[in-house]
Every structure is written in C-alpha cells, then in structure tokens.
C-alpha cells in the first residue's frame, strides 16, 4: 500500500512537484481507542494519544475520519496488548504484547514508536530526550526532560550560567558551556557515571561545542588567538586545530551528516550569515544571503531508510523578530517555517529528521514547541516557571 502511494506520487510529481511534496507526507490519521478503562490503561491511553499528536507522521482522528484504528488492553498480569488495523483493508499493521513495566510512560512511548514504525516504516521520537537550559532566578542551569516535556530533571545546581547543550551521538554524554569557574568553559557530563570533565578552558571564550557524527571530535568556538574563531579537537582533548581566520566572529558550528563539513555563523562581511567549510579547514563558502540576519544553524541527521533528507535549520531575524527557517540549497533561500510574530529561536532536530524543537517567546515568556517541518504544524510543550531556552534533541 505504502509503495503504491509512493509510486503514484512519483508520477504526479512530474506534473506538479509542489503539491506532491505536501501530499506525500500527509499525516496518517489514527483513532486511538486506548487500553481499557483501568487506571493503568487510561494512563497508557493518555500518553500514547499525546505521542501520536506529537509524532509528526501521525495525527489523531475520530473513528469515522481515521485511516487506522488502534485497540488494546491491559492483561491481568500487567502486560499490554496493542493492535493497529487499517480501516479499509482490515489488514493488521501491529499486533503485539508488551511485558508490564512500572514506568508507564516509558512503556507507552515504546508502544507509540512501534505504532509509528508499523504504519510509516519510519522511526518515532517518543522515546527520545531533550536537554535544555533552565532559568533559575539570575542563574541558568543544565536540565534534561522527555521529548514531551515530562520528567524534567535539573542536572547542575551551582554552575551559575550554562548554555548550548549538545548530545553525544550515543546519548551517553552532554557537552555544554558553563561559567562554573567564572569564565565560559566547555564541560562534558556523563549521564551514567554522573561525572563531569572540562573539555576546553582556554583564555577568553570557550563555547558552542557540538560532537561530530562519529562522536570522536568536537567543533567549537574559541577566542584564545584573538576574535572568536572555529576549532576542532578530539573529545580526549588532543589534536586541537584552528579552522577559520577572519576579521569577524565565527560561532555555532554544526556538522554535516557525513561529518565532512561544518556549517556555522560568521559576521566577517557585516551581518551574521551561515557559511560552510570542510572539517579540514580551507575556503569558507557562504550559504545564506538573506534575510540580513541568519544564525543558529542546525544540520539534521536523518537515519538510513528515512524519508527525510538532511536539512539545515536556522534562526533568522526579520522585522525585529526571530523566526525558525530551513535553508534551501537549491534556491539558496531561507524558507520560513515558524514565522508568526513570536520570537522563535534555538531550533534543534529530532533524530528522525522530521521535527524541530525550538524556544518560542511571547510577551517575554518563553516555552518550547515542536515543529513538524513537513506540515508546518506547531505543537506546544509544557512550560517551565522562570523560563527555559536552548533545547537540544537527543539521539
């Protein structure tokens, strides 16, 4: 069935490319009937329905509008059954029993990802986590939460000021900027040993670090040799290498999916714009030309078999407002994705490459939203008192 749809789209695409892109990625509507009326079943239903709402690939529907119907129940031994059926063909897309788990949210997220995969063949996001910066009065500390905003957990309590968290590709570590010893250093926290180590503490600015896709390297901004420039170094602290040498400032490096290129911000020709260069250094290639302010590039790394292509998200400034957009390498233009009069910034990609999490500020209060880059839909996450910023989506 899915193959058929794809083939139809290829045929149509010759006639009208724009329509097919939208059509091809339409949400698949699911009626979530849930897991019965017990307290346990109701909780599972609630979380799974919310996962479907936030999934990008799927949407919630009533029975009459749905393409698929989900049904399930909790057995007396605590294990959970889940079925997904195609309404028209009656074909069963998912039929599985899951062992009971006292962590109901985790169990629900596991089931949700299997529903997404059974229907679309794509990887879901329900079991992922997001690191972010939590505002605590004058201080800012590092925190993590589930992708849906549940289970927020503050990792640091006395760093004074933290910024720019980024996950190691294996999800075991987070690298971030910390003013723990007054100056901005780059630190790495191991989420399992719960130990931290300093990655870079040169004179001046140490910030903006991001792991390479193989997890062995870090690109970052240092100002030890003058104005802020880009460098790479091994995660073990060896092999420091300077990449740029400009009159302006370079910041926010982000690796290409193959690890061979690094996109970043430079203002060497006036206003900040996105550039790209080889990880080995060499020439800077300018990507964006307008609008006049483009920052915070984030390169998506969709997994093998994904229906998404690698994309470069960024934050533009237009009419005094931040908006999240995508750089289109074909037209060399920025396509606005979240441009609604609020300040939308700090975009970070879901590991499946379809969703962005970003910080939206309205009336000087900020909260996180998910953005489905295919449909343009924005999905609100729970807010944090005092504010939160710089979300970074984990693998």
């Amino acid at each position: 069935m899915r193959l058929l749809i794809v083939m139809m789209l290829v045929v149509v695409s010759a006639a009208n490319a724009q329509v097919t892109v939208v059509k091809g990625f339409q949400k698949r509507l699911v009626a979530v009937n849930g897991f019965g009326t017990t307290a346990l079943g109701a909780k599972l239903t609630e979380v799974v329905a919310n996962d479907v709402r936030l999934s990008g690939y799927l949407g919630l529907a009533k029975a009459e509008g749905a393409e698929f119907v989900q049904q399930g129940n909790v057995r007396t031994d605590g294990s959970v059954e889940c079925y997904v059926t195609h309404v028209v063909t009656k074909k069963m897309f998912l039929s599985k029993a899951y062992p009971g788990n006292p962590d109901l949210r985790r169990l629900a997220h596991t089931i949700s990802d299997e529903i997404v995969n059974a229907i679309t063949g794509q990887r879901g996001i329900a079991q992922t986590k997001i690191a972010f910066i939590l505002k605590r009065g004058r201080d800012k500390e590092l925190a993590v939460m589930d992708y849906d905003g549940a289970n927020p957990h503050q990792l640091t309590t006395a760093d004074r000021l933290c910024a720019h968290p980024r996950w190691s590709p294996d999800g075991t570590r987070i690298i971030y900027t910390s003013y723990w010893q007054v100056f901005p250093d780059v630190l790495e926290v191991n989420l399992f040993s719960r130990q931290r180590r300093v990655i870079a503490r040169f004179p001046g600015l140490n910030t903006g670090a991001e792991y390479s896709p193989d997890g062995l390297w870090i690109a970052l901004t240092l100002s030890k040799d003058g104005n802020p420039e880009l460098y790479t170094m091994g995660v073990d602290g060896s092999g420091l290498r300077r990449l740029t040498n400009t009159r302006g400032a370079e910041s926010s490096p982000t690796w290409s999916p193959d690890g061979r290129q690094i996109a970043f911000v430079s203002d060497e020709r006036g206003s900040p714009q996105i550039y790209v260069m080889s990880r080995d250094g060499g020439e800077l290639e300018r990507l964006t030309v307008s609008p006049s302010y483009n920052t915070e590039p984030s390169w998506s790394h969709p997994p093998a078999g994904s229906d998404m292509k690698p994309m470069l998200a960024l934050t533009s400034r237009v009419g005094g407002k931040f908006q999240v957009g995508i750089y289109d390498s074909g037209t060399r233009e920025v396509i606005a994705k979240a441009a609604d009069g609020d300040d939308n910034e700090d975009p970070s990609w879901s590991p499946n490459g379809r969703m962005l999490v970003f910080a939206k500020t309205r009336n000087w209060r900020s909260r996180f939203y998910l953005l489905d880059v295919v449909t343009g839909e924005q999905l609100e996450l729970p807010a944090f008192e005092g504010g939160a910023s710089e979300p970074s989506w984990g693998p």
Partner: protein
Amino acid sequence: MKSKVLTRTMILALVATLSLVGCKKKPLQPTGPTGSGSGNTATPPPITGSDISSGITIAGPGERPLVKPSDLEKRGEFTPVYFDYDSAKIKPSEMPKITTVSEALKGNSKKLVIEGYCDERGTAEYNRALGERRAQAALAELKRFGIDASRLSTISFGKDHPLEQGHDDTAWSRNRRCEFVTLDK
C-alpha cells in the same frame, strides 16, 4: 602535548562532592510528574533535583587564571563602556572611560577582568561571540595604553545578565556594554 595534558589531570572541589557522589539517583516516577499526557497543560511540571557530582575533572587543554565569583563582586569602580547595536567598535565618545581604566592600572600590578555584554536582540551564541569581541576591543585599547596583556582577561556574557530589565531602546543601549573589574591580588 597530549601527555602534558594528561599529567595536568586533577580533581577539584572534592570536599563538596563526597557526600553527593553516586548516592542520589532518583527512581523513575511510575506515573510521571506532569500528571497529564497532554502537552497543553499550563502548570509547570515539577523538576526533580540535581544529582550529578560537583567535582569536575580537568582533562582538556587550555588554562587561564583562577578567579572566584566573589572576586568579581567589587563593581562600579569604572563606568561601563557602551556600544552601538551589533557593533564591537569603541566609539570616540567612550574612549575617555578606557583612559581612566588604564590610568588606574599604572604603577601597580593589579589584574583586570573585562566583561562583554549584549542587548537581548540577538541569538544566544552569536551574542556570546559579539560580547567577546566587545571585551577584546576594550582589551586592545588598554594594550595600546601600555597595559601588559598578561594582566587582562575577558569574559563574554552575551545577552545574559543585563544591566536593565526593560525591553526598549533605553534598556538595550545600557545593556550593550563592557564592564571592568579589578582583582585584589
């Protein structure tokens, strides 16, 4: 170079850590603290506490002077130098302030921290770089006045820690600044 780095490996702040290490990992909540699967709740979810070690291993490269937070509390000795929007250029009208700072550093061996700040109208990391360029512009002028660079260090706070909390031109122009703090040692 690598071996030099490794021999410098050390652990700081052990005293504060010992009671915290590895004993407070929180069990996962079976029902979840939001109490709702809906993402639309306006109630902020409760945040569980920190349980990572505060002892930090310094294994990476780089070194700079150790400065305690309390060292930077003595503020207001000098007038901040203000900047134009998105600019790290020291305006001629601000130069006398730099002269004053350089005079205060002559005939002694005091060290000086130069802090660079931005207004809120830029994104976080770009502003962090801009704040550093502002601090470095002030540092370059002080060097020109004969102050040895080894006495000077820079910190960029980007758009964090604004002087004024407002969201208008007056607040923004006061927040685009460099502050100067001498260290008593």
